[in-house]
């Protein structure tokens, strides 16, 4: 509930009970909305019964229609001079103005979306009952006098957060994997792995999301320390293979350049096993036995079961194939005379890859990452299923988010056609489209340039 106050000087403000800080046991009246001053002292006010609009009548007879949440001046009746009182019709589609001479005027108002302004969509707004202006998305509420909160900021934030974690997971795996498969692997193995990755690309996102939400999320919750350990242990375990390799008798080694995978996969499995066995004692030693408890006491972070880590893993899994394929494309179409020349000059495989292949193909890798970004931004089912879909503004990896895409999927079935929510959701879709369109176009142009470059080389 908001109170409106008007003064003799024509100032207008909206007040409600809010708690300015967490220490406030009781709320106090706060002046949350200050409006542009009227031309004269405020004589009367009339509030809409339908939404947060109100009409203010000045001493000089001016009539101004405004909206509380958005602080917008919706209408200022210019021809009206003798008004003494005004009210908004119950359906919000008209104004009744009583004039000094006793006459009554009825205006029709066509004003379908008064609560929307650039500020309510992208800026901080002081909503009823809040202690300070905030970014909030809350489209429906239990009561009739509910104040709709249409800030797109938490959603854009959630989208970027999910994308960030997915990319953090996917980029190293996909780009390094692509480098390996294009430069180092045995051709026979390459012929097997390419189709596997293509099939990985074709896995429906609903399947990935389902496994992430119902299988992975509880698993991660239970073995969170082990999973964190694995991030360090697994690369080390796979790389440790090189030590074993150099100890192997030469007679075996000579015949198998490019078949390291056969050794790496068991090593990785071993690494995972080691992480799982070590994790409980590590948890005991580092986090006094309970990681989640430690998290909340040390950093004050909560642990949601369906959190950004799960989303990062799942969405990363979903975008690995696309980044992988495009990066591999770029790596393996580096003209062979360049690599052959480098090798002939005595550079090792790794030196050739790092100094010749990667720099030449870097625009391709860039466009691969951009396209991966585009995919992650628009991914719907995975975030829908693997997060709690709460629109929060918090970078913590241990809680969830709500993305633009999931928001559309969740809310549009309930949005009445043509209503404000419906249009805001369309705006969300337009935002998504713009983001992906820009990113994809850049990526595509870069890719075409690269292809021309290769042709010229």
């Amino acid at each position, binding site marked *: 509930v908001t109170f409106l106050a008007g003064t003799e000087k024509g100032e207008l403000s909206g007040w409600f009970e809010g708690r300015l800080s967490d220490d406030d046991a009781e709320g106090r009246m706060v002046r949350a909305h200050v409006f542009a001053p009227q031309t004269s002292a405020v004589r009367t006010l009339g509030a809409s019964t339908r939404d947060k609009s109100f009409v203010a009548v000045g001493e000089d007879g001016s009539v101004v229609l405004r909206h509380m949440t958005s602080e917008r001046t919706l209408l200022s009746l210019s021809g009206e001079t003798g008004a003494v009182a005004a009210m908004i019709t119950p359906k919000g589609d008209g104004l009744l103005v009583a004039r000094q001479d006793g006459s009554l005027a009825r205006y029709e108002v066509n004003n379908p979306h008064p609560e929307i302004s650039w500020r309510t969509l992208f800026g901080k707004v002081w909503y009823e009952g809040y202690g300070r202006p905030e970014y909030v998305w809350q489209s429906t509420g239990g009561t009739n006098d509910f104040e709709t909160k249409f800030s797109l900021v938490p959603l854009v934030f959630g989208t970027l957060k999910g994308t960030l974690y997915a990319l953090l997971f996917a980029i190293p*795996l*996909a780009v*390094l*994997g692509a*480098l*390996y498969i294009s430069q*180092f692997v*045995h*051709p026979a193995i390459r012929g097997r*792995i390419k189709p*596997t990755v293509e*099939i*990985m690309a*074709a*896995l*429906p*996102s*609903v*399947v990935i*999301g*389902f*496994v992430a939400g*119902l*299988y992975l999320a509880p698993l991660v919750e*239970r073995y969170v320390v082990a999973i964190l350990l694995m991030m360090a242990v*697994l*690369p080390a375990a*796979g*790389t440790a*293979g*090189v030590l074993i*390799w*150099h100890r192997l008798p*030469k007679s075996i080694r*000579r015949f198998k350049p*490019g078949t390291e*995978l056969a050794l790496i996969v068991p090593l*990785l499995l071993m690494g995972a096993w080691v992480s799982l066995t070590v994790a409980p004692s590590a*948890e005991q030693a580092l986090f006094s*036995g*309970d990681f989640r408890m430690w998290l909340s006491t040390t950093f004050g972070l909560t642990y949601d079961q369906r959190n950004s880590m799960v989303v990062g893993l799942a969405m990363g899994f979903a975008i690995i194939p696309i980044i992988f394929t495009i990066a591999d494309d770029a790596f393996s179409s580096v003209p062979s005379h360049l*690599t052959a020349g480098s*090798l002939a000059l005595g550079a*090792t*495989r*790794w030196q050739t890859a790092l100094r010749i292949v990667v720099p030449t193909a870097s625009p391709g890798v860039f466009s691969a990452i951009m396209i991966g970004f585009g995919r992650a931004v*628009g991914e*719907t089912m995975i975030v829908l*299923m693997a997060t709690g879909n709460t629109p929060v503004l918090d970078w913590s990896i241990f809680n969830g988010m709500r993305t633009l895409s999931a928001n*559309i*999927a969740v809310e549009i*079935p309930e949005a009445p056609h043509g209503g404000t929510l419906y249009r805001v959701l369309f705006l969300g*879709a337009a935002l*998504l*489209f713009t983001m*992906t*369109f820009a990113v*994809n176009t850049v990526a*595509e142009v870069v890719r*075409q340039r690269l292809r021309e470059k290769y042709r010229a080389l």
Partner: protein
Amino acid sequence: MAHPPSDLPPPPTPQDATRPKRGSAGAGDTWIWLTGSALGLCLLMIAGLVGVVLVNGLGFFWPEPLVKVTLKDGGVFLGQVEDEEPIPQPGTPEHNQKRRLQLKVGNRDLLGFDFKWINEDEVATREDPADVVYVERREYGPLLGTPARLTDSGQVKAEGSEAVWAAVQPYLDRARRDRAALRKIERDQIGEINYRIEQARLELRGLELEQSRRPQPEAAARRAELERRVAEQQERYRAKQEELQKLVEATSQSYLTVATVDGQEKELRTLDVFRAFRPNRLTRWGRLRVYTSRLWEFVSGDPRESNTEGGIFPAIFGTVMMVMIMSVVAVPFGVLAALYLREYARQGFLVRSVRIAVNNLAGVPSIVFGVFGLGFFVYVVGGAIDRTFYPEALPTPTFGTGGILWASLTLALLTVPVVIVAAEEALAAVPRSMREASLATGATKWQTIQRVVLPAAAPGILTGLILAMARGAGEVAPLMITGVVKLAPDLPLDGFFPFLHLDRKFMHLGFHIYDVGFQSPNVEAAKPMVYTTTILLLAIVVLLNLTAIVVRNRLRSKYQTSAF
């Protein structure tokens, strides 16, 4: 152990025996192994995902033996052992020392829960009773217990576990036939009558509308005729209802009583028993039979218990049908676009931007397509169709709401880039010599395209189609807002004119996974069902993709061109 051919890229550099630059080569090798680990991890993840789905899904239909657990406090539970794990008690020395097991106890109506965790040190005895039955029924999930009594028309036919089990078999067979008969009346016959009544009612409404615009003399006669038809159908409806009532009564005479281990008794109509078996008496062969029969029910039956049991046939049907409509739309557009881009258009800035746009279209989030489908197809096009052709049904929308046509069209938009790219690739791969030969013999350009280029490119276009189908079958987000529902008893294809009902809502495998896994009231009990659905969807998508890969590889070796 194969020698790598020396001329293949990348040229393997032999780590020669002397290894002169040990430091740098060794360090470089470490990095190579790191990149290899990245790839290895990707492969492991794929294997892990598929493995999780397969293990959890395939085992579900296998009838596991039942165990009877008596607790020290006197509680008795009968169920399948679902899981066994150490009890986590972080921070205490007892952490992971004791074990507990999870029993799937069934009998939801009697117990109020499906699963029971039992700490192992509370268990007094654990046995495998031989004569327990596992009854799958219409409502409340499985019923577990010992058969106690069989009554028919109020008379006790058999008592005692063995006797009842022997006596109930013919009843179960009859129940199956009765259910089929009931279903036929309920769904086919009464459904038809309802459909006709609805049609007549709409025609009446249409007549009224017409009448209000421009009165016609013969309207009264038509009106009377329509009303007569409605009355006639309603008469038939009443008769059918009566027949149904009688049949239900006739088939509900026999009751099976099952005693549960905690001493309660549950009486249920044999008509409601879908399957009953004694899991602890089954041979391996018997288990296999139960397994196949459950699997068959899964792919061919209708869902029960708010989709958590029974089959998923409507979802399979809806998916296939939607993909087919989508292909019919996407392929012509895609192929024509590719033909123009590749064969007719002058390669320049415009064509380049079109190509970028096509690639871009493939990268647009699917939910955006969904929103477009909702805003344009459903509300604009559908709304216009309704106002023009179905004014009598308004305000109930016919096409102005989500339906299989709009969902398919939305997906067609989504998959058209896949078709265009593949078709372009295929057209580019047709050797120049073939076209030139055709043109040299006097064929026109169109004749060349039609008789030479297109047939040669057909397999490539087919690859594109298959890939598009795979993408379409797996996409869910745009469907959720353009016409998929959790339960659609009427298939979009049936025996009433016009047979193909494009305005109907439909079920979809992918949405089924989402809905049952995340929106159903009893997620834990529904999980296995979701896994099995996932296997089916995965199988469809992977098979389609494999086909596409095989076709494409054949093509590559056939033409040996380096098309991008």
